[in-house]
């Protein structure tokens, strides 16, 4: 089967940095299968998502979507890409347009993809907000009138409202308390199960990773040091960095 998204020996160097920020990264995301990217702060996880989204260009190697090289100038491919792939950014506040009401923000994918008119979008927006535990009256308010975790859920509602095939999510539950977190994890699990959603998720919460992702790739200083089935990687970590990561998970006092 052709992977939905694939990185092949990819490297990225930002302007002004002396060395590659990520290098030699190869990974493939099969349809309906979820991949977690974990690793130390600054290891390059967000950079890899930016590559997969076409927001960063590889300085070496390739990014493929449905088997073809991702090319932002190929309009037909970009249309398919935007119809298929949605994302949740790490910093919810800066990814929500402060001058627009939440209703318009969440409806945006439906509107820009030409799937809905304003009136046919409304019930879908309400349903998407409800699924993440936000009240219907949220549509009339602006992003700054919400708490951190509420803004994060607005971003999740926007990314899931149009039934994407693939969701790229950068720490999508980091600002959520555990009860809300369980709710959102259940929602994503349901989308996977019922709609065959493919999820690529960056998370430092290894229990969320274990609950949602079949595969895990561990990144250290821009390189993948270990990847495979999550049960294998987290259950029998082969790399010292992965072991350290698992040992550092804070546990509740018994």
């Amino acid at each position, binding site marked *: 089967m052709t992977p939905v998204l694939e990185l092949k020996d990819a490297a990225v160097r930002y302007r002004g940095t002396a060395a590659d920020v990520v290098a030699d990264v190869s990974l493939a995301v099969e349809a309906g299968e979820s991949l977690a990217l974990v690793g130390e702060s600054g290891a390059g996880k967000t950079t890899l998502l930016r590559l997969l989204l076409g927001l960063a260009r590889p300085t070496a190697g390739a990014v493929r979507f449905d088997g073809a090289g991702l090319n932002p100038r190929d309009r037909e491919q970009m249309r398919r890409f935007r119809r298929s792939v949605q994302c949740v950014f790490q910093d919810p506040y*800066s990814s929500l347009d402060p001058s627009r009401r939440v209703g318009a923000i969440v409806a945006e994918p439906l509107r820009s993809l030409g799937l809905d008119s304003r009136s046919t979008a409304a019930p879908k927006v309400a349903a998407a907000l409800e699924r993440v535990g936000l009240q219907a009256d949220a549509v009339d308010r602006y992003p700054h009138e919400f*708490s951190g975790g509420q803004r994060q859920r607005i971003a999740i509602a926007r990314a899931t409202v149009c039934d994407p095939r693939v969701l790229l999510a950068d*720490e999508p539950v980091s600002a959520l308390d555990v009860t809300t977190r369980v709710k959102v994890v259940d929602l994503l699990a349901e989308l996977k199960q019922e709609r065959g959603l493919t999820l690529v998720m960056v998370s430092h919460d290894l229990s969320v990773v274990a609950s949602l992702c079949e595969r895990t790739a561990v990144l250290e200083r821009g390189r993948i040091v270990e990847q495979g089935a999550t049960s294998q990687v987290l259950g029998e970590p082969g790399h010292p960095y992965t072991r350290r990561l698992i040992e550092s998970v*804070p546990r509740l006092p018994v």
Partner: protein
Amino acid sequence: MTLLDVRGLTVRTDDGRILVDDLSFTVAGGERLGLIGESGSGKSLTTLAVLGLLPDGMTSSGSVELAGTQMVGAAERSLTGVRGRDAAVVFQEPLTALDPLMRLGRQIAEPLARRTGLTGKHLRGAVHQALEQVRLPEPDRIARAFAHEVSGGQRQRVALAMALACEPKLLIADEPTTALDVSVQAEMLELIDGLVREREMAVLFVSHDLAVVSRVTDRVLVMKDGRAVEQGVVHDIVRAPRETYTRALVASARKLESALDLRSAP
């Protein structure tokens, strides 16, 4: 000695919605209090009210005494002295707190210079040290970078370094480790722990993570819908939560934790 004394704190919007409802708690010098609760329960607004930083369209009532200064209803001028000197804050979303147009090094240098009077080479050295203290790699590059040129967790550590550079009597940290992987998080918690002991710094620590809160604080206050539902010693509350919401919180935390155990069972 009581450093922060909050009594009957209530925050309402101009159109009459009550967002924080009759909240009371104290933090003594060198003490650590955790604030935990549901998303949207009023934790961040509480920290903003403590510092007199509520957004337009909201007012607070009740009493907030911070190092002897009444913060509720006080004139902006008398509050600026308190902020930084007596209390420093790490905001929940570092991007909103950092100036996008100013190099990160300069943003740390400002509070440092104010407190220490250092200049030039010595000030640069101190900035370097402040960045190293929060375990940022390549501190010199990060000092020269703008906020959008570093990773999410790096930004969060810059914000922590800025707050610590003030050597405040009270550190208010709103979800200061959400963007950090667990190993860097553990190091930051240790750093805060150490400073609490060395400097007798007090901490008001907002977090949604019970395990993290029980690692860094002595007492915890659990919030829901703007109210305190339970308050007490962390370990007691984790072991024997009394209120329905707290019980659900502990149960969810254990449920998530067990996902990890299943997979990592040999």
